[in-house]
């Protein structure tokens, strides 16, 4: 009897674990490459650090004006009041500027994390947030590899703040305020395909200026916001250690194993239950 039980335990455990393991191999890759997403190409070699984008973004979204001095050594961060910030870095090619905001990933971790679909990858490309759906769990913040979504901790009706690529303007045929008004033409709006072609062209024509890489072409499964630079991207404070697979891929194996556990475990349990019940009856009869 004792051995029987232990065997059951073992089989059950092994079955469960193999299931989980097997399933994580069967992940199908869903690729979004055939969809025409809009995106933005930011060229750090052109940016002059005028902060027009910061100021206009704040104005347009009804947020406070930019704070903190823009100078090398003083790293500013986006927060619940500032959806985009510029920073200045001392690099191997002198002081350079860089803009940060939501990357509008092709397969966003935030949207995969969101249990209410409040965070959502629109078919146009921008990743947007919907306050009527959001329950403020902040799982999107936990999951975003770029730490983009920000939460209004000091509000009784808190919102998630992040760049939306001016979605309302885009669907009316407009372009984001930052891209529209950048005096240095460092921010270019367009479809992702066009932007990558444009970036390649700039790299090819300016071999001495650019490094041969587009940040965001593959990072985190590809992003809508992409960067060009004259120095390696980590010198500009971008995280170059991120994986090239999309982040939702990381939890797909687990999610795919759920249905099989639901189909296989209950009958298994029922079978063990019937078997042990029979055993008990036999034992009872023997005792009598």
């Amino acid at each position, binding site marked *: 009897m004792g051995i029987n*039980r232990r065997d*059951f*335990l073992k089989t059950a*455990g092994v079955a469960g*674990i193999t299931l*989980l393991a097997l399933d*994580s191999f069967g992940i199908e890759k869903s690729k979004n490459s055939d969809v025409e997403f809009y995106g933005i190409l930011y060229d750090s070699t052109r940016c002059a650090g005028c902060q027009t984008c910061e100021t206009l973004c704040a104005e347009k979204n009804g947020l406070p004006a930019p704070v903190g001095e823009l100078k090398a050594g003083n790293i500013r*961060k986006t927060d619940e009041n500032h959806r985009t910030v510029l920073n200045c870095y001392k690099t191997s090619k002198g002081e350079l500027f860089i803009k940060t905001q939501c990357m509008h990933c092709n397969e966003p*971790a935030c*949207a*995969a*994390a*969101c*249990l*209410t*679909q*409040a965070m959502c990858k629109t078919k146009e490309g921008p990743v947007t947030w919907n*306050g009527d*759906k*959001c*329950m*403020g*769990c*902040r*799982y999107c*913040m*936990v*999951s975003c*590899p770029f*730490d983009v979504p920000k*939460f*209004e*901790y*000091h509000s*009784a*009706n*808190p919102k998630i703040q992040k760049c939306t690529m001016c979605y309302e303007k885009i669907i009316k045929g407009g372009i984001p305020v930052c891209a529209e008004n950048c005096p240095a033409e460092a921010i270019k709006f367009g479809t992702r395909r066009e932007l990558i072609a444009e970036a390649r062209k700039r790299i090819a024509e300016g071999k001495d200026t650019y490094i041969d890489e587009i940040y965001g072409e593959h990072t985190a499964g590809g992003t809508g916001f992409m960067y060009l630079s004259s120095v390696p991207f980590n010198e500009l404070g971008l*995280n170059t*250690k*991120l*994986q090239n697979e999309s*982040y*939702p891929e*990381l*939890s797909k*194996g*687990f*999610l795919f194993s*759920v249905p099989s*556990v*639901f189909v296989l*475990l*209950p009958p298994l*349990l*029922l079978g*063990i*239950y019937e078997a042990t*019940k029979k*055993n*008990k009856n036999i034992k009872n009869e023997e005792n009598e």
Partner: protein
Amino acid sequence: MNNSDISLSNENKSKSTFKFILSELKPKGKFFTTFNIISIPVILLGIVLIVIRFINGIGAVTNLTQEVPWGLWIGFDVVTGVAFAGGAYVLTFMVYILNMQKYHSIVRVTVLNGFLAYVFYAGALLLDLGRPWNVVNPIIGNSFGTSSVLFLVAWHFLLYMIAQLIEFSPAIAEWLGAKRARKILSGMTIAAVIFGITLSTLHQSGLGALYLMAKDKIHPLWYSEFIPILFFVSSIFAGLSMVIFEGSISHKVFFKQISEKNHWAQKGIILGLAKICAGAMFAYFFLQLLVFIHGKRWDLLDTPMGYWFLMEMLGFVLLPMLLFVFGYKKNSIFTVKFAAILTMLGIILNRLNVTVIGFRWDAAVSYVPSWMEIVVTFTVIFTEIWIFRWVINRMPVLKDSPEWVKEEK
């Protein structure tokens, strides 16, 4: 109060049930116990803090930051609390599925504990939600984020609570003297148990899977694609250690309620659980070792976080495992209880290491919970114990079922 005294005639049943419940609402026993003296002020303070939190926002009482959006309330209350509540699914598996009758006398109290733990610890999630009025969105309506692990976990919490309520409901029926209802409800037990175990398997591992996308934020010694499996296996001995620990406390506090026969069985139960804990911990330790070797993490060991990791693995997994084996071999209840406490500390350590301590361990400003977060956490725990005590004193959980239950069989 003896439940077998209650026989209700059908016509005034509902009225007297109501009166009966009213009379049962009054507290029983001494009021000025140490527990009451400590817990009442904490609970009152906690309620004030919760009110402040809803007026001024989460930031008014917590130290959460933009980089660390989940702190103590999720990492301890929810993630750790649910691991400890795992005893319910393990025990129902042993008693109902494997038919290990030896453990039958503790199954009810464990299920009650599990149920309350889910209600309160998962309930603590509500405090942490910035926009709790939208909490129904993933349950009803058209906002199903089916690609979200949290969506899965939320649903499982809800369904599992219902399953546990069904598993426990015969005790409520016995308390109310509702014979017919008891019969129907206990007929549903096996289905609820099977459903409950399946749900538990998935959401115990699901709690780990929540952190899969935070790959770059969790210290590599605690992050691996196997977090779900590690969380699942460790929930087995986390839950059982809790059963041992909680059992030895209720055994003292509610001494009078436990029948002679069950008093004697207690020792055998504890030793049996110790054996199972040791087995599960061996599997867990082995898995951790595999993950460690597979991830080629040797060079991380010689860092402060590495020592911390070694302490968790050796001091709070390997050591209690050996103590469980020792206690079992030597028939030493004391050793087993000590091992159970060590194991529980180890689980707290592990869950906090994944969710709080190792999460953004490299951030410039690290997150340390505020005293207010800690008070609210204790408020949640104490309130749960109050309700637990209220139920134990009234329903046949530790004490034997009323006579009419046996007659019916």
